[in-house]
């Protein structure tokens, strides 16, 4: 009886402690990674009042604009694409608003072309006579910062680099754009 128990114990060889620890560490690491990914995925867009992380846009003309260098100015970031029909609804209004603020030097408009083809994007800018800086969202880096859910979306950043207003979908009128910018300017 004793002998059989000893034999059974010999068969049930325990794994080395380091293997068990390593297995648990891998499992925990994997779970932490999944949790982190889930948290990131569930995080909504940048909220009004939150600081917007700095980013840079290289325009179709090759000019690089860094938001860090635009402190003290109100920045209007508009996400669009040539394949987006609702974007066309607000294109003329945005240009009109830009023309209104251009000379003040207090407001900067940035057009971020979201996953698009350059030829069509240039055609779109030409069609709507858009003159403010526009550039591609390379590797979707900018849209990931704002966690956009689609196009068009517009974000207005105040003089302190905080998000002042957000518009999901196209603007209906120029006054809608100007009222949002004005309230950001007056903050």
């Amino acid at each position, binding site marked *: *009886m004793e002998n*059989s128990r000893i034999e059974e114990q010999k*068969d049930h060889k325990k794994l080395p402690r380091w293997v068990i620890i390593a297995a648990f560490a891998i499992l925990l690491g994997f779970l932490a990674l999944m949790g982190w990914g889930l948290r990131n995925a569930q995080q909504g867009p940048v909220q009004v009042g939150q600081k917007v992380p700095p980013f840079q846009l290289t325009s179709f003309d090759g000019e690089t604009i860094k938001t860090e260098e635009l402190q003290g100015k109100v920045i209007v970031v508009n996400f669009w*694409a*040539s*394949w987006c029909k609702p974007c066309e609804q607000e294109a003329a209004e945005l240009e009109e608003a830009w023309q209104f603020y251009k000379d003040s030097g207090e407001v900067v408009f940035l057009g971020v072309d979201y996953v698009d*083809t350059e030829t069509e994007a240039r055609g779109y800018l030409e069609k709507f006579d858009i003159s403010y800086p526009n550039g591609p969202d*390379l*590797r979707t880096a900018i849209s990931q910062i704002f966690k956009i859910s689609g196009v068009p979306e517009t974000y207005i950043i105040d003089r302190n680099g905080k998000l002042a207003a957000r518009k999901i979908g196209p603007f209906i009128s120029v006054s809608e754009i100007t009222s949002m910018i004005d309230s950001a300017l007056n903050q």
Partner: protein
Amino acid sequence: MIENNTTLFQKRRLFIFFILFSLFFLGSPNLVFAQNDFPTDDQVNAIAKELYCPVCENIPLDVCPTQACAQWRALIKEKMIAGWTKAEIKQYFVDQYGDRVLAQPPARGLNLLVYILPPLVFVGGMVLVYSNLKKIKKVPEKIVQNPNIDDEKYLKEMEEALKVMNKKEDLS
């Protein structure tokens, strides 16, 4: 006989005509051929298949019906005409729209987990199954080979317990 001669003559004439016709075209210094339809839609789709639509959920570019995807397929065609290789076109798409456009994620950073974890888990599972199967096989051998196992005592106890249970059932 005469009929045979005429058909033979006709065949010979046709043959000579064919030779002259071929020589005329082959010898011509300014040959003009029909333009090759390059790249064909199949060739474009062969690359598009390995890329995913950046704005739609899990739809390969070759079967994506949106206007945006049609633009991207046209872009692939444009690049192919310009002489770009498949790798260059794929890299261009990655640079523009990020890694998510690739059907196969690149083996770097967190993506490495996709390549490392499944084989690791598979091998681990195999080892576990093998070791358990080995144990199952060993158990019956052990019982038969071990002469010191004293089952009698337990068997007697069991039989007595059964007897008691039967008696209780009979009484009820």
